[in-house]
């Protein structure tokens, strides 16, 4: 067996990103969508760390940027949850397919 190379990490990242994307697009529950967004962000993190390990090991650019992303993801998750709570308070629903006030 070959050693685990860059491609494996990229493929993993892509698959995770794909799953996350599918979840964002297709999940009904708002929390589920938020979780899928986190998944997408984390996939991107894996991508960046992989590239940093394999393409420029002496610099830690990828890792630093990942820390930023994790921070922002946390903040964004907080905002997202606040939106969901606000949505629940006003509409009593958290299923995205039922929130279509902007429908024609």
């Amino acid at each position: 067996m070959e050693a685990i190379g860059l491609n494996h990490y990229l493929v993993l990242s892509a698959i995770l990103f794909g799953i996350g994307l599918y979840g964002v697009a297709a999940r009904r529950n708002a929390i589920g969508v938020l979780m899928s967004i986190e998944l997408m962000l984390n996939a991107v993190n894996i991508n960046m760390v992989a590239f940093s390990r394999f393409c420029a090991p002496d610099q830690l650019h990828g890792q630093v940027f990942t820390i930023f992303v994790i921070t922002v993801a946390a903040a964004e998750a907080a905002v997202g949850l606040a939106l969901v709570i606000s949505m629940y308070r006003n509409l009593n629903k958290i299923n995205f397919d039922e929130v279509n006030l902007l429908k024609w």
Partner: protein
Amino acid sequence: MDFALHNAWLIPLFPFAGFSVIILTGKKNLGVKAAVIALTMLGCSAVLSVLCALATFGAHPHNPEHFEPYVHNMFWARLAQSPLEIGYQIDTLTCVMLLVVTLIGWLIHLYSVGYMEKDPRFTRFFAYLQLFCCAMLMLVLANNYLVLYAGWEGVGLCSYLLIGFWFEKPSAAKAAKKAFLVTRTGDCGLALGIFLLFAKTKTIMFQGIFAAAQAGAHGHGEQVHQLPFSFATLKALLHSPYLVTQPQTDHFVFTLAALLIFFGAVGKSAQFPLHVWLPDAMEGPTPVSALIHAATMVAAGVYLVARSYPLFTTGGHEIGVALQVVAWIGAITAFMAATIAVAQNDIKRVLAYSTISQLGFMMLGLGCLGFTAGVFHLMTHAVFKALLFLGSGSVIHGMEHGHHAGHPGADHEAAHGEPFDPQDMRQMGGLAKYMPVTCWTYWAGMLALSGIPPLAGFWSKDEILADAFAQNKGVWFLGAAAAFLTAFYMGRQMFMVFHGELRAKDCHPHESPWTMIWPLRILAVGAIGLGLLGTPWANVFHHYVHYGEHRLPANYVVMLLSIVIAAAGILLARNLYGVTPLKAGQEDPLEAKLGPLWAFLQNKWYFDELYDFLIIQPLLRLTRCCYRFDQKAVDGTVNFVGLFGIVVSRISAFLDKWVVDGIVNLIGIVTRASGNLLKLTQNGLAQTYMLVVFAGAMVVVVIRMMSG
């Protein structure tokens, strides 16, 4: 006296001023003041006329300078060849007419004050009378055919206005229309005659025309052979009209013009065959009948013939075609009208037919070279016919007021089955004791008309008959027969109206007021005495008015025959009506004797029916045809053209509604449809939106990868 002659143009203007003043005072009803104005104005004209007459008394038969002051007034218009002038003339014939019109007119104005007293349109009556006098005086004073024609039309108009004065009565309105149309028919002839004369002589002045006529009559001294009066000449003239101006057609043209002018006189003077309007004209008030249809307007025709005598006598002292026509028409009219008068029951209708008959006499006289006789009879007839008409008006006035005064609420119609007619002689009788003055003046007029010496009518009628006897025995015979009938029907009228007992029940007639009585008295004096001016032994009148013919010596045979005829007529009337006066409701004794002839006479020889059948019905049919043509053809064409407009408008409407509006609507529809379609992308779900964004981003990446 010259003052009067030079200012004679004022004579017609005085009554015109009267007319204007009365008409222009608007709503304010003048009442009796209008009558005073009218009497004053006509009085001024009368005074001037008398002065003019006095001025002409110096005319001597050997003095050719009869007083004719022309005033070529008013150069009126410029025609191609010469200036058109109009003016007036005064000669003895004019003076006779002036005196007749103004003096008798004045008396009738006075009479009208009493007769028309209660009429609501009192002032308008006097305005019309004044206008009539103006027109008649203008006619008489004219020295050219154009002004004469203007006056002629003016009297025709006034006759229409006055006959139809009580226009609420449909019979009066119809009668006025009939009078106007029938006289108009005659006027066409007069107009054509004037045109023909102008074409021949290039002038409208009497002097010029008559000089040309007399010169042409003698063939310009026998140098130019005259074409005869025949159809051949007429055809030649129609073929080449310029021949009118050539001297060889002089005789033809002047004779034809004379006949056309006589046709105008036939219409105006109610001669056969245009006599039908005069009896109907009795629908007008009695003063109108007296003035217009007895004394003056109908005499205008006689005056016209007398004035145009040079045209009629182009044959010298032999009787030409024109004069023969005049004489025969006059004779036929005289006889026919006298027969009709015998069978009439309305007091005014008898007098109307009597007028027609006497006008026939005048034409008869003129047609037998009796110029003086005809004019003399015109004058005396004016006096006694006016007297008779005014007397009949007095009788009618008395009967009407007597009937109303007796029983104001009585229903005559219910009692007798027909409305009370104050003019019906069968209702009258015995009026001598109720209206003595009317009675004796009426006797004076009746005797004058019948031709009993020494009253006026005898001298004038006898002169005519003497002239007729000398020229044309056939015409004389008709005239004598008419004279007999005249005496008879006047006697009949006298005995039916004034003698016997009053036949109308509940009627208390009374004598008329002074305004009506005094004209009767004055006219009676005239009827009795005026004839003495023209006796065969001392014919003053002939000295005054003549046409150069010599006086015939007194013809005792004719005179005796005339007296016998008149007396026989009156005696026969007395036998039938005077000895055993008619009772109320009794049939006329003559009716039984004559049988079917009575109906023929009473229905006026069925002339009205004949004219209705021959002329009026075809005209009305033509009118209806024209009306239908106008409705269907003309209006149909217009409507058809309109149809095109409708069709075009419908097409246009369709295009506008479906095509133009369709395009506009289509834009809206497309917009909405596309909106409907595109709104489906807005499903309100954020996840869908996000997917779309992602898909778009992918497309961009792929395109970038593929191109670079």
